[in-house]
């Protein structure tokens, strides 16, 4: 009796395969794994399992190159013959035994019981029973063995090992069952392989590739995944590509629409070898692939759109930058002349009126710079150049440049020797804006500036305050907002961007700008924090 069993080679291999995908959730992973590491193998297997490949029984169809040995079922008696023999044995043996018993009873009744004859009868009876049991047992084994082998194979296929095939001799019902199992497994394996290739192909696509490369890539992938003779992707209305008839014996045309839920992007067409089977499951797989291609193409189109928009925005931004630079130049050039001439005249013959011209041209030029700063802050192109500088003299210069000689200014430097780390140009803008603010809203009160080290670390704190009414409760939250003006309709002057720009500039320099809480004897008060260097020991 040839029990079906795996060869040692096959079982080893199975263990290894099983080990590889073992921990993961069985079926699908196993299937992918198998299809990935066995390109060559499954080619062979696919052809072997081909339903049109002839029904020739076992012997001739060696599964060369397969990783599992075929499950062999023999001998070559038909299943019907074996079942008949079994049934006969089951019926005849008890009948014979019954006859023997009847005969023995007859003999015993007619001619006295000869003990020898009686023993013979008992012996024959026992022999017949034993014979029947043994015969029945072997027949049962002969019948259930192939069924067990088939069951094992089906179990392994359902566990994901699609390479298992069962071989059977003869052409009986069992052989046909085995044949259809093999075909099923082969189809599953082929589709698994195709699915694996599709997944790999999808994983390789990127919207960055652009539509053209994507289409070329998808066409090549369709050809290799489905083993097509040729493949083509037409973008646009799928109905523009006529549907081809299937002609037996010629290459089989296949087709799948590149469909999205809301749009048909195009159509994928191609031809398969005439011998290749093609059923609903294959078509499903092709359509799955087509819809993935459709998604990839849509992504590429969107990506391209976004890229173009971004480019356009960058161009526009550069144009705006150029425009503002031009405006700035066109405003600053006359201001430069005005100020230079006023300064020169002041040098020759000091005059308060000339000083006002100087101050006001400076003011105008500061405002232009503030607007430029807003544009750069919005574009993210502001890059401060950090240098070390002493704050106290800087503050004094900034105050003097403002030209408000009639207001008292008090400067407390409680951080002698400390140097702030800041961009001099940007810091000047901040100081100018804060002083301007203090003068504007301070109601003629004294303006005070105080510099002190931050007790929390290597930073300098700089508070600029006035003794005016301060910032009202309702305005506190919006004071740093763009185009916010503290004074309401009574104070229409100012661009409303001074504090916004100042805060952003401070942040860009690694510092901060805060509004101080209102306190007695304190009007509007803003504190700048800047990175700083503690006093250096004299070394050179």
């Amino acid at each position, binding site marked *: 009796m040839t029990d079906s069993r795996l060869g040692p080679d096959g079982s080893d291999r199975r263990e290894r395969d099983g080990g590889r995908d073992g921990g993961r959730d069985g079926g699908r992973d196993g299937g992918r794994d198998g299809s990935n590491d066995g390109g060559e193998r499954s080619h062979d297997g696919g052809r072997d399992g081909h339903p049109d490949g002839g029904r020739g029984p076992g012997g001739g169809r060696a599964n060369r190159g397969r990783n599992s040995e075929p499950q062999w079922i023999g001998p070559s008696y038909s299943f019907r013959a074996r079942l008949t023999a079994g049934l006969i044995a089951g019926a005849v043996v008890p009948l014979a035994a019954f006859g023997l018993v009847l005969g023995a009873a007859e003999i015993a009744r007619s001619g006295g019981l000869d003990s020898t004859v009686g023993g013979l009868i008992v012996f024959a009876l026992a022999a017949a029973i034993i014979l029947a049991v043994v015969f029945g047992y072997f027949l049962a084994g002969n019948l259930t063995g192939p069924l067990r082998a088939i069951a094992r194979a089906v179990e392994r296929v359902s566990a994901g090992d699609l390479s298992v095939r069962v071989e059977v001799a003869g052409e009986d019902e069992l052989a046909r069952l085995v044949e259809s199992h093999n075909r099923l497994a082969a189809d599953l394996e082929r589709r698994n392989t195709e699915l694996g290739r599709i997944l790999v192909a999808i994983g390789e696509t990127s919207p960055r590739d652009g539509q053209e490369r994507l289409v070329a890539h998808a066409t090549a992938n369709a050809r290799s995944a489905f083993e097509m003779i040729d493949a083509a992707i037409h973008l646009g209305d799928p109905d523009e590509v006529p549907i081809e008839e299937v002609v037996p014996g010629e290459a089989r045309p296949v087709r799948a629409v590149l469909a999205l839920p809301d749009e048909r992007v195009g159509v994928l067409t191609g031809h398969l070898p005439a011998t290749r089977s093609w059923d609903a499951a294959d078509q499903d797989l092709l359509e799955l692939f087509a819809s993935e291609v459709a998604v990839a193409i849509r992504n590429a189109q969107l990506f391209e759109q976004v890229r173009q928009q971004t480019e356009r925005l960058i161009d526009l931004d550069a144009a705006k930058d150029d425009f503002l*630079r031009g405006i700035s130049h066109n405003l600053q050039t*006359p201001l430069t*002349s005005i100020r*230079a001439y006023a300064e020169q005249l002041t040098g020759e013959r000091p005059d308060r009126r000339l000083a006002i011209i100087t101050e006001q041209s400076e003011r105008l030029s500061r405002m232009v710079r503030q607007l430029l700063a807003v544009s750069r802050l919005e574009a993210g192109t502001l890059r401060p150049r950090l240098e070390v500088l002493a704050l106290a*003299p800087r503050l004094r210069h900034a105050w003097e440049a403002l030209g408000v000689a009639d207001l008292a200014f008090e400067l407390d430097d409680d951080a002698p020797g400390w140097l702030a780390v800041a961009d001099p140009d940007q810091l000047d803008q901040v100081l100018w804006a804060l002083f301007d603010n203090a003068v504007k809203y301070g109601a003629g009160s004294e303006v005070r500036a105080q510099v002190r080290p931050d007790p929390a670390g290597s930073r300098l704190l700089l508070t600029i305050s006035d003794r005016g009414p301060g910032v009202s409760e309702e305005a506190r939250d919006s004071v740093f907002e763009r185009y916010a003006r503290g004074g309401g309709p009574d104070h229409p002057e100012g661009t409303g961007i001074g504090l916004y720009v100042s805060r952003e500039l401070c942040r860009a320099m690694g510092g901060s700008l805060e509004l101080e809480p209102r306190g007695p004897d304190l009007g509007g008060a803003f504190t700048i924090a800047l990175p700083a260097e503690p006093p250096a020991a*004299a070394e050179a």
Partner: protein
Amino acid sequence: MTGPARGYGATSPRILLVDDDPNLLVLLADQLRADGFDVQTARDGDEALRRLRSGWPDLLIIDMMMPRMDGLTLAREVKAQADLPIIVLSAIDTADSKADLVEEVAEDYVTKPYHYPELRARIGRVLRRLGDKVPRRDLVLGPDLVLELHRRAATVRGESVPLTPTESRLLYALAANLGQTVTTETLLDRGWADTEDADPSYVWVTMRRLRQKIEPDPNHPVHLVTVRGIGYRLVGVAGAEDPVPA
């Protein structure tokens, strides 16, 4: 090549001033002449190049925005012919995206509207720096330090570190006197000529910050050495190719 006639004696530096605004051109030329410079003027890039053919000045002052050839193009063209020091006058400030382009070709630049005293101080600084000749190439000071002052950066242990304008000015002065002590006063003048309230602590603190950037161990400097009570010295260490310019 012979320079233009010198109207203020053999020692007065020659300046070619290029600006398309005639008001400014006349005024600035007057102010510079009053300070003892030998000044020629040009209204645009072409005129400037024509004037250069008849002799090189010691310094060019170029307006950034001019019709036809802009200041940047002119500066590049001049630099392609000779290593003339250039100061760019421009309405853009240091935070502008074009500032880097300007700094690549120009020794310095002054934001419009300028204070004449500040411009004057910067002219003085650039002219003083003429004596400090550093090749416009990388300066290898050791296995871990390469100075690339022409693009205001250093490569420290293979990583590029940006330098501020002041830091690179100080390193420029030190590199020009490689291995020799440069006094704190000289460094203060090179770094902060236009900052009237700068004192030696500016130099000390900036050196401390520079060491943090370029020294392998800032607490034990090997490249930026303090010469106590006098100044600083920039030195190359073993493994460096000969960094002394020819």
